[in-house]
């Protein structure tokens, strides 16, 4: 599903060049449930941005579902994001003036699905995350956990290949975090590839595989409790 070969990425600010990713090789297969861990500055967010085609890389190859993601223009990138990826962010990033149903339906708007159909689908996905009754509420009227569940429903509605979550529990208390993780586990059980960036061990423990980053390199890839450890 995902193949990264020797990915390099640097940021240039003024005269200083910051080498953030120093040759990442990673393969994630369809249906995997992976967390990416690392201290701040280890390059985990940059890696996620590259995986999400939100940012480009300097060297290497990124193959997503058999297609090479290189030199994409904005329109093409937008197309792949829309078709293949679902995003969940730490700060939810719901559109404040749209209600839950409209937020969930928005990716389908960009797929030119008609309003009736996309609202119907949005209700279905809201139901999956247990928020059918909240469909007509604005984000400001919801708790953090509810907002994140709306965001998850939004990421799922296009039936993407991969869900990318950037610190999805970072703004939630532990009980809500656990609920959100339960949803991710359910999604994964149904066959969806899920990648979560986190620095919380108990969150990472609930995924099946942990990729640890350190200083722009992969330090280790470990299977969690349920699986036997295999060090690289």
């Amino acid at each position, binding site marked *: 599903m995902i193949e990264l070969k020797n990915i390099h990425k640097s940021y240039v600010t003024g005269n200083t060049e910051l080498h953030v990713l120093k040759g990442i090789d990673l393969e994630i297969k369809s249906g995997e449930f992976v967390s990416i861990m690392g201290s701040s500055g280890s390059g985990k967010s940059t890696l996620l*941005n590259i995986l*999400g085609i*939100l*940012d480009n890389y300097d060297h290497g190859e990124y193959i997503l579902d058999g297609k090479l993601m290189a030199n994409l223009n*904005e*329109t093409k990138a*937008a*197309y792949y*994001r*829309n*078709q293949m990826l679902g*995003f969940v*962010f730490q*700060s939810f*990033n*719901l*559109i*404040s*003036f*749209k209600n839950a149903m*409209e937020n969930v339906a*928005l*990716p389908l*708007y*960009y*797929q*030119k699905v*008609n*309003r009736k159909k996309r609202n119907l689908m949005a209700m279905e996905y809201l139901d999956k995350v247990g928020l059918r009754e909240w469909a007509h509420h604005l984000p400001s009227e919801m708790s953090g956990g509810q907002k994140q569940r709306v965001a998850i429903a*939004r990421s799922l509605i*296009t039936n993407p290949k991969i869900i990318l979550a950037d610190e999805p529990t970072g703004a939630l208390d532990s009980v809500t975090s656990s609920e959100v993780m339960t949803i991710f586990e359910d999604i994964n059980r149904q066959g969806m590839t899920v990648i979560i960036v986190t620095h919380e061990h108990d969150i990472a423990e609930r995924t099946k595989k942990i990729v640890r980053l350190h200083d722009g390199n992969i330090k280790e890839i470990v299977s969690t409790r349920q699986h036997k450890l295999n060090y690289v």
Partner: protein
Amino acid sequence: MFNLDNWQELYSTIKKNKLRTFLTGFSVAWGIFMLIILLGAGQGLENGIRYQFEDDAKNSIWLFPGETSKSFDGMKSGRRIQFTNLDFDRILQSISHVENISGRFFISGAVNIMYGSEYGSFNIRCVHEDYKVIENTKIIEGRYLNGKDLSEYRKVAVIGKLVKKELFKDQNALGKIIKLNGIAFKVVGVFEDSGGDEEMRNIYLPISTAQRVFNGANKINQLMFTTTASVEETKKIETNLKKMFAQNHRFDPEDEKALYIRNMLENFNQVQNLFLGIKVFVWIIGIGTIIAGIVGVSNIMMITVKERTRELGVRKAIGATPFSIIFMILLESIVITTVAGYFGLVSGVGLLEIISMNLEASDFFRNPEVSISVAVSATTLLIIAGSLAGFFPALKAARIRPIEALREE
């Protein structure tokens, strides 16, 4: 791209951002509104002044006799000057650029005017046939006086619309006989005049007939003619007239009170310049107002994009293409400016209508109005400018990189 969905998306955005939409729209509507009011007021002023000139031909020169104020050639001051048919002939002979010329003879004493048992009091003007052009008289029935009426001393009359109404009610007046101090005149025409009701209570008689019938000998009380000359040339004509009349009537050429000359062309020319001045003034202010509107719109669109950076980033992350972002911002800006511009246009024109209906037409202001083409082109201009104003912020929005937008708190 123009499917129902885009409009629904636009509607939901506008609905959720009422204040911003209102402010954008207001600056546009206000700009158009002010422009329309200004243009209308300028036109009203022009209409008012122009109306005053409509009564008489704009290129006419009028001569009025006065009293001498200086002793000259052995005669004392205070002598009345009396024009005669000779003066009429002399002007025709010696003054250049004369187009239409007429004299006017005043009947002394009241004239009893009757048709059958109906009678009324009207003004009588005894003139030459060319007076029609000088006074801008419009014949609505029959004909005006002609050369034969004058040369054959015919007893004919041309009457005003109100004269006809009072004497003849709804009957036909042409060919009927009216009696002036008992003398029969045949009605040959009915006229209208833009000089107002008073002008339409006039009766025109051939001056030659009137001089005979009403003991006028060869006396003329006023002389007037239209000219093909330019403003500068009429100045020369004025001097020549003065010299000629001074010689023939034996008064001092320097005497200001013996002869009065009214030069309509010169007056009108001054007023033309005034109109031009008003127009330039109105457009300078109008264009200023429009620029202010455009700046307002682009300012608000800039803020809009800034304010929505995060939202636009989210949209891009979930699959919005740069084109769809540009389209969304642009559509919003065009719709707001169009609707607001239309609103400003309608309320401006509406206010002008109300003013025009309720305001008594005065000498300096009447019928404030805007030509619809000017109004529409101004609105179109503002809409185009509004879209341009939206375009650059939209382009900026399309270039927002999603990660940067999402990072922004």
